[in-house]
């Protein structure tokens, strides 16, 4: 009489391999594959980057009209708390992301540089809005583009950018922190020949700072 054997379930197979593995008579490469499936191999940096990326503490810092849209990012519709960034810290000592939301006047630039210097080390800066990235609507004597005195990680266009745009910018920063940075427009459209012509020598955007760190002339 034919014993009706039910199909060998995947669970059954896993139990048998586990038993063999425990008894030690699993062939060599099967052990390798067995461990491979179960252990998430990573490096310390990627683990730290994963943690930092997912829990950025922004600084309560608003300059002008973009700050009004930045407040909307915290409000209930475009809720930044879904991604873990809603703990806005008031003091630069506890914050690791500064969102420059608004126009940076020449009187405010040394103050911002000083706050940036007083933030602790894994720190990033988002320049929100056209006025902050490139003096936007007011190309005049009173404004300073923020990447002239600060290393900026993400520029967000718009005047003011929508809260969703700021959210998108912060998520782009998170990808950048976690190692898989989205490629900029030059890579996306492989626009070779439009690279920024920088003078030779090692050159980081913080070096072209008009105001030396800690210098508050005019504050």
């Amino acid at each position, binding site marked *: 009489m034919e014993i009706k054997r039910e199909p060998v379930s995947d669970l059954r197979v896993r139990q048998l391999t586990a038993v063999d593995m425990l008894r030690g008579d699993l062939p060599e490469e099967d052990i390798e594959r067995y461990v491979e499936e179960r252990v998430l191999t990573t490096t310390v940096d990627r683990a730290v980057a994963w943690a930092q990326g997912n829990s950025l503490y922004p600084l309560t810092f608003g300059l002008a009209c973009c700050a009004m849209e930045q407040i909307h990012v915290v409000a209930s519709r475009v809720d930044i708390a879904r991604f873990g960034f809603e703990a806005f810290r008031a003091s630069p000592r506890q914050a690791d992301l500064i969102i420059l939301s608004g126009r940076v006047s020449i009187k405010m630039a040394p103050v911002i540089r000083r706050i940036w210097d007083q933030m602790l080390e894994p720190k990033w800066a988002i320049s929100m809005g056209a006025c902050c990235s490139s003096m936007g609507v007011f190309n005049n004597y009173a404004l300073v583009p923020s990447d002239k005195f600060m290393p900026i990680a993400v520029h967000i266009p718009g005047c003011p950018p929508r809260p969703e745009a700021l959210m998108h910018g912060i998520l782009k920063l998170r990808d950048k922190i976690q190692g898989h940075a989205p490629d900029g427009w030059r890579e996306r459209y492989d626009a070779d020949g439009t690279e920024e012509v920088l003078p030779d020598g090692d050159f980081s955007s913080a070096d072209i700072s008009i105001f030396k760190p800690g210098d508050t002339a005019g*504050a």
Partner: protein
Amino acid sequence: MLRDYLPALVFLILGTLVGVLFATLNLIVARRAPNRSKVEPYECGLPSEVRAGFRFGISFYLIAMLFILFDIEVIFLYPIAVELRSFGKFAMSETIVFVILLMIAFAYVWRRGALEWK
């Protein structure tokens, strides 16, 4: 006899270990990149206006002491409140005496006007 004090000893050691660890871990692991303005005090983004030899007023100290006094009183009530049934009547009366004593102190402080801010 010594054995039943072992948990307290282990608890003590673990407490100090964790305390010291949290205090010093930052000094060991943290990435240090000091610059001129990072070491200066943070005062709303400007060089601090507070002069070096500034002496805080006595009222702050007074308020702090009063707070500690009455806060510790509340902390003492917690363990009693948790295990009141097993302690029995004696603990209840003991707590009442304890609270009355502190109420007297509170009345004295209130009448002397130490709570109003000068």
